[in-house]
């Protein structure tokens, strides 16, 4: 290598032409002197002189080296070789004149080649070459480069260039020190990628994210926050959310700063557009590299819609509950064991609050499920079923109910419970009975009236025949027919009037036994004629009470008429017992009169409920008007009483009027 100033670096020494000349001259002169000495003095003196000269040259070389020009000292060279970075020294032509071991390892012993060729495979110097800059200004320069090793690896290096100067300060060469930062670069790239990823996440997560410092100032926000509240970094969070100038009381961010724990709460904030949003907010601590709590991240999710739905659900539930409790019918919900799991207040008031009890126990007083239970049917087929039932109230009385059972399904559509809705149809049934009575009464009455008309028509015919034939006997028969039927017409009209209007009751304190005796006497002959034993059984000490005498008489008369008719119309061929009608009167321990008329007629078929009245109305009572039970019911009601009956087929029937006793003291 030859320097531009004529200096050569060789074996650790900087050689110039002058220095080479000086060395050559010294060597020649030394040779001449030594030859002369040897010619004139002999070998011994020549040897001594050679040794002295060698010593002198060595000291001079030492001084040269110490002047900084010599690099060929073992310690420096060891350091140069072993330093853990690429070291190379370039001359002004950018040729490599010296390299260290690491350089050689990765780039090869490329002495004499251009550095740009070695590093980059380029044919010319790099733009902004730091080596050239150092040669120009004698200063240290640094840069980052990507270079290619001899085995084709790309390596990232940071390069420092340092001038190497001679004793005159002239830059003789530039040392290039390069540190492999490939791994650092990779880490940097990875960190950058992660940072980007985090940034994306931070920005795009569908909730409001913000980080706050200890003064509750916003350090950073995500896209969602920026969109809704503005990118107000540096502002106080309480200002943004609430327009407050001070920290919110019970602030969850403050708590997190205090204890380093995650805190949450729900809050309602006002957006810049004036709308309100309900948020659920979490504050979580952020620690720095020293592990100290430096910031808090606040994550807020807008639950406005969810809250609105929740509120609506609550409202609906409340409304449903109100409906459930307030609807004017009895509602219960049963599980598959028919146990009551819920009931509305009306139900509880009426039947008692007995959750977990089977429904048939609660309002049927049964120990087993009812036959044809509508609830069980609904469990089986998942359909609505309707049934009329007679239920037993908690006070022991009974009520007619229309019951509808409907399924309650879970999310899979399986029927898990049944709702039973029961409506009191007692009034309706009463009206139905009344209408049935009326309908049947009208039908029976029509039948009777037809018979009466036929009787009158027939009577007139017979009278006319009697007149035509001059037959007094026939005349008499006809006239009696007319009389009888006119009487029947009169009785029907009277009964109709009795039923149709509010008759003025005429109460008096009387012994009801006397009325019964009177009826017994009235029907005695007829009963004998019809082959019926008419028996009177009165309680001995039957007390007096307030009665409308005629009404009571009418009530007992109607019941006795029906009973005798039942015996007369008994078509059972295998009957052996004498027909019997018993009229009874007594008073029970609750001071209720019980007037009973029993017969041992055919009885009423047990499966027919209300149509017992059909049977009665469909039989032809000779003396009755067809309004018998209607009248009897009315009389009993006017005395604040009721009429019931019991009947067994082939055994007989008992009608019972129960009338509370009233004395002169507590008249109606």
């Amino acid at each position, binding site marked *: 290598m030859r320097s531009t100033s004529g200096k050569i670096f060789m074996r650790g020494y900087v050689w110039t032409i002058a220095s080479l000349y000086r060395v050559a001259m010294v060597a020649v002169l030394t040779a001449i002197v030594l030859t002369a000495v040897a010619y004139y003095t002999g070998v011994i003196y020549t040897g001594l002189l050679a040794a002295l000269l060698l010593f002198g040259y060595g000291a001079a070389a030492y001084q040269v080296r110490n002047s900084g020009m010599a690099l060929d000292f073992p310690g420096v060279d060891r350091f140069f070789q072993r330093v853990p970075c690429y070291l190379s020294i370039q001359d002004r032509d950018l040729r490599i004149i010296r390299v260290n071991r690491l350089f050689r390892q990765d780039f090869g012993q490329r002495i004499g080649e251009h550095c740009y060729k070695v590093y980059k495979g380029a044919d010319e110097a790099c733009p902004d070459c730091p080596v050239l800059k150092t040669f120009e200004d004698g200063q240290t320069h640094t840069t980052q480069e990507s270079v290619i090793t001899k085995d084709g690896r790309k390596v990232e290096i940071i390069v420092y260039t340092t001038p190497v100067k001679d004793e005159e300060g002239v830059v003789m060469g530039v040392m290039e020190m390069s540190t492999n930062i490939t791994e650092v670069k990779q880490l940097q790239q990875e960190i950058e990628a992660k940072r980007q990823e985090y940034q994306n996440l931070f920005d795009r997560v569908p909730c409001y994210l913000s980080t706050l410092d200890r003064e509750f100032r916003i350090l950073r926000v995500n896209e969602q926050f920026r969109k809704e509240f503005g990118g107000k970094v540096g502002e106080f969070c309480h200002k943004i959310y609430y327009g407050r100038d001070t920290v919110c009381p019970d602030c969850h961010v403050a708590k997190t700063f205090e204890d380093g724990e995650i805190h949450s709460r729900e809050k309602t904030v006002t957006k810049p557009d004036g709308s309100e949003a309900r948020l659920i907010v979490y504050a979580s601590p952020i620690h720095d590299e020293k592990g100290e709590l430096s910031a808090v991240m606040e994550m807020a999710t807008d639950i406005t819609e969810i809250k609105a739905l929740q509120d609506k659900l609550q409202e609906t539930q409340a409304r449903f509950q109100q409906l459930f409790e307030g609807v004017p019918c009895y509602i219960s919900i049963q599980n598959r064991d028919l146990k009551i799991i819920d009931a509305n207040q009306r139900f509880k008031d009426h039947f008692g609050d007995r959750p977990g009890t089977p429904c048939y126990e609660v309002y049927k007083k049964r120990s087993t499920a009812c036959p044809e239970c509508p609830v069980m049917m609904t469990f089986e087929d998942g359909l609505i079923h309707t049934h009329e039932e007679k239920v037993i109230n908690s006070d022991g009385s009974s009520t007619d109910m229309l019951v509808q059972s409907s399924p309650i399904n879970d999310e899979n559509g399986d029927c898990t419970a049944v709702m039973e809705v029961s409506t009191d149809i007692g009034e309706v049934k009463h009206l139905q009975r009344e209408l049935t009575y009326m309908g049947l009464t009208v039908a029976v009455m029509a*039948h009777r009236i037809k018979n009466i008309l036929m*009787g009158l*028509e*027939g*009577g007139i*015919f017979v009278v006319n025949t009697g007149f035509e034939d001059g037959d007094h006997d026939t005349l008499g028969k006809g006239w009696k027919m007319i009389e009888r039927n006119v009487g029947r017409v009169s009785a029907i009209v009277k009964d109709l009037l009795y039923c149709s209007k509010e008759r003025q009751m005429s109460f008096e304190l009387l012994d009801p036994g006397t009325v019964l005796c009177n009826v017994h006497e009235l029907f005695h002959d007829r009963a004998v004629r019809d082959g019926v034993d008419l028996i009177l059984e009165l309680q001995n000490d039957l007390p007096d009470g307030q009665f409308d005498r005629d009404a009571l008489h009418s009530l007992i008369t109607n019941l006795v008429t029906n009973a005798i008719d039942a015996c007369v119309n*008994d078509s059972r061929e295998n009957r052996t017992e004498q027909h019997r009608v018993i009229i009874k009167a007594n008073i029970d321990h609750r001071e209720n009169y019980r007037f009973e008329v029993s017969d041992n007629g055919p009885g009423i078929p047990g499966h027919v409920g209300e149509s017992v009245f059909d049977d009665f109305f*469909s039989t*032809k009572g*000779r003396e009755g008007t067809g309004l018998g039970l209607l009248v009897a019911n009315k009389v009993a009601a006017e005395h604040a009483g009721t009429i019931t009956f019991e009947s067994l087929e082939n055994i007989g029937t008992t009608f019972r009027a129960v009338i509370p006793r009233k004395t002169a003291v507590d008249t109606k």
Partner: protein
Amino acid sequence: MSKKVMIVDDEEDMRIFLETLFKKAGYETEVAINGEEAMRQLEHGVPNLITLDILMPKKSGISFFQAIREDEQLKSVPVIVLSGVTRHSEFFGSEARTGPTEFVEKPVAPDVLLSKAKELLGE
């Protein structure tokens, strides 16, 4: 020999009326107060016409009618079913078509009833 009319009715007034009517028209009459009694009387002779009430004790008019229509000897006897029950013909089944039968609803004018009877008797 005059034709005989059997009157089956538990109502006295009806029996008096029908007896007077048919006797005046020249028919013989016999009466029964219910279906059971009527069956017993039929054992002694078959009438030319039967007038029959429905609602009677001890064998109703319907069961009596069924019995006579199932009887070979009696099934062709004309019957006037006379009742105040509305649409009483509906209570009778196919047996009503097996013999000459007339359904008459009360009240009925005497001459109308007589006319129907003569019709059934082929007069």
